[in-house]
């Protein structure tokens, strides 16, 4: 209420239901329930009786029943939840570390760790050492959707270990 101290502070559970009333012409003519009381809102920049703030009563004891807020988890509850989560995470991490240690020890004894690595035993061709490279200049590189066309010139190629040169090279590829 105007003039009263703000009770309850930041975390107060008191809930006030507040109704702003005014008519289109600015007039305020409403019959009010007894328990209500009207305050003039200081922020309404009009003459008196054109608008106002109707306080319909406090919390659960007033005429307007408070529906929301009753089951809210308060900040206290949130803190508790966080603490639990942290504790759980720590436990999980400890468990994970233990499991990893066991795996490492077990692995050394049972089989090498790289036993399942993808290793290709055979060279696909005899030319695995060759990085086939073409070093050149481009006149034009074009693309239409995924169809690429290359217009190259003045190039030196190393294919399969052999060297080639060209003045012009045209090519096609799909991406």
């Amino acid at each position: 209420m105007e003039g009263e101290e703000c009770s309850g502070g930041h975390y107060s559970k008191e809930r006030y239901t507040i109704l702003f009333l005014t008519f289109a012409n600015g007039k305020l003519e409403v019959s009010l329930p007894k328990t209500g009381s009207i305050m003039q809102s200081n922020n309404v920049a009009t003459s008196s009786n054109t608008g106002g703030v109707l306080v319909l009563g406090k919390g659960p004891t007033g005429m307007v029943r408070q529906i929301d807020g009753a089951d809210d988890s308060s900040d206290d509850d949130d803190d508790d939840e966080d603490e639990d989560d942290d504790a759980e995470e720590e436990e999980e991490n400890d468990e994970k570390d233990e499991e990893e240690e066991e795996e490492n020890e077990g692995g050394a004894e049972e089989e090498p760790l790289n036993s399942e690595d993808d290793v290709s035993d055979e060279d696909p061709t005899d030319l695995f050492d060759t990085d086939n490279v073409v070093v050149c200049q481009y006149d034009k590189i074009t693309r239409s959707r995924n169809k690429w066309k290359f217009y190259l010139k003045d190039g030196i190629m190393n294919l399969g270990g052999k060297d080639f040169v060209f003045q012009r090279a045209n090519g096609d590829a799909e991406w």
Partner: protein
Amino acid sequence: MTYQLYRNTTLGNTLQETLDELIQYGQITPQLAIKILLLFDKSINNALPSRVRSRLTFKAGRLNTYRFCDNVWTFMLNDVEFREVQEVAKVDKVKIVACDGKNTEGKV
């Protein structure tokens, strides 16, 4: 237009290795080696358009990747067939590095 592009060829790499060896033996200075490489760049950039005549075409099974950065195109092609009149060369994988061939480009 003197690209240092052609240093990563059999010819260019062999030259660089030789120069490194000579530097190691103290027979030439590093500055001289740099000069020689620059001269190599100039020579190869002049020789290719004027003394090479061959033209070829190529067709790739697939363009694996393409990159255009600093006006340099880099392509990775798969299953490529290079054809010059009668001769054919096939490779599984080829990397193409191409610098801008326009005349107004400066040194790289």
